């Protein structure tokens, strides 16, 4: 079949075939413009997380608006004329921007205790820092001690202040998002009707279009805000923060990674190819195959709407590297054949090259696909998508390379290389080492495996989002300031359900009061569920107890809740608690504008529920997220006496922790799956259990070393590093396959294990060596990323490749020689 295809079709009509291939690539390449990048917070969390539903429900119930935070660290005293003037100017410039709805700074918030006055007066005459006769010393004290402003607008030491830049709400986005999520939820429980499916696909496309428009606006907004900030850097250090800014910066990072690494890897690979082969065609051909493969894959991703996330931001470089590895094997094989039979004609040589390499390369690619496919077993959406993306990409690479490479090569003139044997002393040295120091190799390998296993057992999943970024990035610096000075970055919601009022229709037990009194009693009973009466002293007392408890935890920064309002109320009420009646009146009479700020985000009377909006200091080194969440849950029931079902947690910290906690199981699952898949493939390929087990061993050694190294050096598992093990096994196993495949053939020549080993090292060994070096050099460019997990990914995959190469050229032949899986030696 393959013979027929190559002989009668591809190599017979190479130009026509090329035309068809290039047409397909061009069509798909055109679709590549649809390739999209997604860096929303949702890409960092688990796909089927029940807490995600709850968190969405909480944010719908309590409302959430989008804003940016500018941390402003003045060079002079915060309350000096100079600084306040600059701050006012900054605020006014920001306010004047089109994409900014309002700005809240220390200049705009009402001063409640500077000086202390009765509430009646406060309301009729609001004083701010900008009021003419304000006492700044009193204001300074108020900001430092206020339950609301401290840790929110100013750092406790007053060295830093924050400006909250509110962005306009986007009701359409919210509406589309809610409807989309609703339909998704429905589709999980039952099959959608035809109308619903149509609506879903319509909403999906409208959602995407709208989101893209919104992102462009957001990017412009952020750029404008940054430009305004730049005008004030002489008086203060300014940092931008906020969810939209993180997402926007991440998109910028991803775009930069895609471009820089794509181009960087391409240049590095070109250089490596030139250094190895010294002939332009061996630079041109592999590069062309790699680039067209990437273009085609981008087209496929655009067509299917798979979006590039932080995790998959290096898919271009990865695909370039893997495609290059395949083409290098083809080049090496072709050169081997041309040196062996220089008189053979080009078509015959190309035919032989393609045919002899189809099997090992297909298996090598299949194993790599297995490595990437195993990622779909974990339940982190961007990792799953990455798995699919790469599996599709590598399959494209295999197909395109085996079509393009022969079709192009057959059209090129035959050129016998000037140097036929590209020798590397390293493979020779390793062959000698394997022959002479067999026992040492086994001992060293065992030690490495044991060390790796012990190290792997020390692996941690704890890592902070801040640490994902280089310290030099504004993203890191901004988050660090907010984290340390302004109450923490990662939101956690604690929701407490109070008992619901009985329904008014329910008959109240008890004796009659007598006559008309029963009628009056019924009147009150009918109205007792009214919202304003929800605020009882008992409930408020419990709210404050929970508030104080959450505030007392060392890991938490700012806590905002109904408790904050109660504390402010007490300060204004000469130290007296606000009573039921006052609270009911506040609830009833408070104008909507204030209600939206101080009540609605923290209490839902309808559901008899209160929300404590906690921010956790993410960069705290001793932060143990899982432990913290468990402690809160436990203390709320055991120490504060709430029934277990009445306290629920939500928010990004919880979702992020769920993702982190799933990493261990995901790591074991993906790795387990890839090893099982590889053993199966080895069995199919080599038809011997013994060979399959021998083949898997060097790969286990390489992955064990990498995981052990991470454990010993304290590199945590994260969404990106979790993929290293499976991917590096998938890539590194190529060496094993090529080596064993060749060994089988070489052993058949003279039935001598040692001689076969030396011949293998001298032939396929070089190809393995060069492909590995190419891959390692390719991955090394990832250290330039702004995204720390990408750097780890580059370095650790490189390490895995080194170990895999050395193991494939020492341990693997040693095991083969000792265990003699291809039968006894022929004397």
């Amino acid at each position, binding site marked *: 079949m393959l013979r027929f295809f190559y002989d009668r079709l591809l190599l017979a009509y190479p130009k026509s075939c090329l035309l068809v291939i290039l047409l397909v690539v061009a069509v798909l390449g055109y679709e590549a413009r649809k390739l999209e990048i997604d860096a929303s917070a949702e890409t960092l969390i688990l796909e089927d997380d029940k807490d995600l539903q709850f968190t969405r429900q909480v944010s719908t119930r309590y409302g959430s608006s989008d804003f940016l935070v500018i941390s402003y660290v003045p060079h002079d005293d915060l309350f000096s004329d100079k600084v306040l003037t600059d701050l006012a100017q900054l605020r006014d410039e920001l306010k004047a921007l089109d994409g900014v709805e309002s700005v809240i700074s220390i200049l705009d918030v009402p001063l409640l205790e500077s000086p202390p006055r009765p509430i009646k007066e406060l309301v009729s005459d609001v004083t701010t820092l900008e009021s003419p006769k304000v006492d700044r010393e009193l204001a300074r004290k108020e900001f430092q001690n206020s339950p609301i402003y401290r840790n929110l607008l100013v750092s406790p030491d007053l060295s830093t202040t924050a400006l909250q830049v509110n962005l306009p709400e986007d009701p359409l986005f919210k509406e589309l998002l809610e409807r989309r999520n609703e339909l998704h939820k429905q589709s999980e429980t039952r099959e959608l009707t035809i109308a619903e499916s149509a609506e879903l696909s319509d909403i999906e496309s409208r959602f995407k279009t709208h989101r893209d428009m919104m992102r462009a606006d957001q990017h412009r907004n952020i750029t404008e805000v940054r430009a305004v900030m730049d005008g004030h850097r002489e008086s203060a250090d300014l940092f931008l923060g906020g969810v939209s800014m993180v997402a926007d910066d991440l998109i910028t990072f991803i775009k930069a990674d895609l471009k820089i690494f794509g181009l960087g890897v391409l240049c590095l690979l070109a250089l490596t190819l030139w250094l190895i082969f010294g002939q332009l065609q061996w630079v041109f051909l592999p590069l062309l195959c790699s680039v067209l493969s990437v273009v085609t894959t981008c087209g496929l991703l655009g067509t299917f709407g798979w979006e590039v996330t932080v995790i998959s931001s290096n898919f271009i470089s990865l695909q370039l590297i893997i495609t290059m590895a395949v083409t290098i094997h083809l080049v090496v094989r072709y050169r081997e054949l041309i040196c062996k039979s220089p008189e053979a004609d080009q078509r015959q040589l190309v035919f032989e090259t393609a045919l002899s390499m189809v099997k090992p390369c297909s298996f090598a690619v299949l194993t790599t696909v297995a490595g990437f496919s195993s990622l779909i077993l974990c339940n982190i959406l961007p990792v799953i998508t990455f798995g699919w993306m790469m599996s599709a990409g590598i399959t494209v690479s295999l197909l395109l390379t085996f079509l393009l490479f022969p079709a192009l090569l057959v059209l090129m003139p035959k050129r016998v290389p000037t140097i036929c044997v590209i020798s590397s002393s390293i493979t020779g040295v390793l062959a000698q080492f394997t022959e002479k120091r067999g026992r040492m190799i086994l001992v060293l390998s065992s030690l490495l495996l044991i060390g790796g296993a012990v190290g792997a057992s020390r692996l941690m999943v704890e890592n902070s989002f801040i640490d994902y970024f280089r310290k030099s990035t504004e993203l890191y610096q901004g988050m660090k300031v907010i984290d340390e000075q302004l109450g923490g970055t990662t939101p956690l919601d604690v929701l407490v359900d109070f008992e619901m009022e009985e329904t008014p229709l329910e008959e109240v037990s008890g004796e009659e009061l007598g006559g008309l009194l029963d009628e009056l009693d019924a009147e*009150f009973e009918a109205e007792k569920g009214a919202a304003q*009466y929800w605020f009882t002293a008992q409930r408020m007392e419990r709210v404050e107890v929970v508030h104080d408890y959450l505030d007392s935890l060392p890991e938490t920064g700012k806590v905002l809740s109904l408790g904050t309002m109660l504390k402010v109320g007490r300060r204004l009420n000469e130290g007296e608690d606000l009573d039921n009646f006052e609270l009911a009146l506040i609830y*009833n009479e408070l104008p909507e504008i204030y209600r939206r700020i101080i009540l609605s985000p923290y209490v839902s009377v309808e559901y008899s529920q209160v929300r404590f909006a906690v921010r956790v200091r993410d960069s705290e080194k001793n932060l143990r997220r899982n432990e913290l969440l468990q402690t809160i849950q436990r203390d709320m029931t055991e120490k504060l006496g709430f029934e277990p079902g009445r306290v629920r947690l939500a928010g990004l910290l919880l979702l992020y922790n769920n993702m982190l906690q799933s990493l261990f199981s995901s790591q074991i699952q993906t790795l387990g799956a890839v090893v099982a898949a590889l053993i199966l493939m080895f069995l199919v390929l080599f038809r011997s259990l013994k060979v399959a087990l021998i083949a898997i061993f060097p790969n286990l050694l390489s992955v064990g070393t990498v995981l052990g190294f991470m454990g010993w050096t304290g590199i945590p598992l994260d969404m990106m590093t979790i993929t290293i093990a499976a991917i590096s096994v998938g890539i590194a196993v190529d060496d094993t396959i090529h080596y064993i495949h060749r060994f089988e053939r070489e052993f058949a020549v003279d039935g001598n294990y040692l001689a076969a080993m030396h011949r293998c090292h001298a032939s396929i060994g070089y190809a393995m060596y060069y492909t590995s070096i190419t891959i390692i050099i390719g991955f090394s460019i990832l250290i330039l990323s702004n995204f720390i997990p990408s750097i780890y990914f580059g370095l650790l995959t490189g390490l895995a490749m080194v170990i895999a190469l050395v193991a494939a050229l020492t341990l693997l032949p040693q095991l083969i020689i000792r265990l003699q899986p291809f039968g006894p030696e022929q004397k």
Partner: protein
Amino acid sequence: MRYLFSAILCVLLLASPTLADAPNEVRELLKVKIDAVVVLLQDKTIEKTHRNERVLDIISPIFDYPTMAKLSLGKKHWPTLSQEQQVLFSDLFHKRLQASYLEKLDLYSDEEILYGTAQAEGKKVHVPTTLVSKGSKIEMFYKFYRSAEGWKIYDVEIGGVSVIQTYRSQFDGALSEGTINDLLEKLRIDDTFVIDAADVKEVSPK
């Protein structure tokens, strides 16, 4: 038979002229009382203790403190109290209401009181009033019922918040966590159980 029926109907109608006139009667009753209190408040020559005594003399006849005490516990809790506890509770509650009322009289300045149209519902009449001062308006509802001794106030609603309902929710909460004796003790000493009617002025920036 037809005549007999008509005759009975006429007798019944004639027998209840007060109900037909009730809204106006109650509105007038309230107006007289409040106007009298306002006159006292505007007279700065009267000594405060004496003034308060006279104010209570004026308003006490229309406030049904015992009924308000019962309603504040409702039939869920009231019948569970012993007779002795009921007497004690009524007494403390009565004092609370009076104290909080008097405490706030000093805050009266020059508010104008507007009387709306009273609404009758069976044996109940609700009189809406509006307290108007510079730039702010506060709605107040006086809720009367017809007792054996005439029209009496059983609840006052200020800014949409019923005084009795607020006590009910608070007492219900207190009794679900503690005993009646705890509640009695709290009423005796704890200021959080005093409702400040004048808070309305402070917290309603509308």
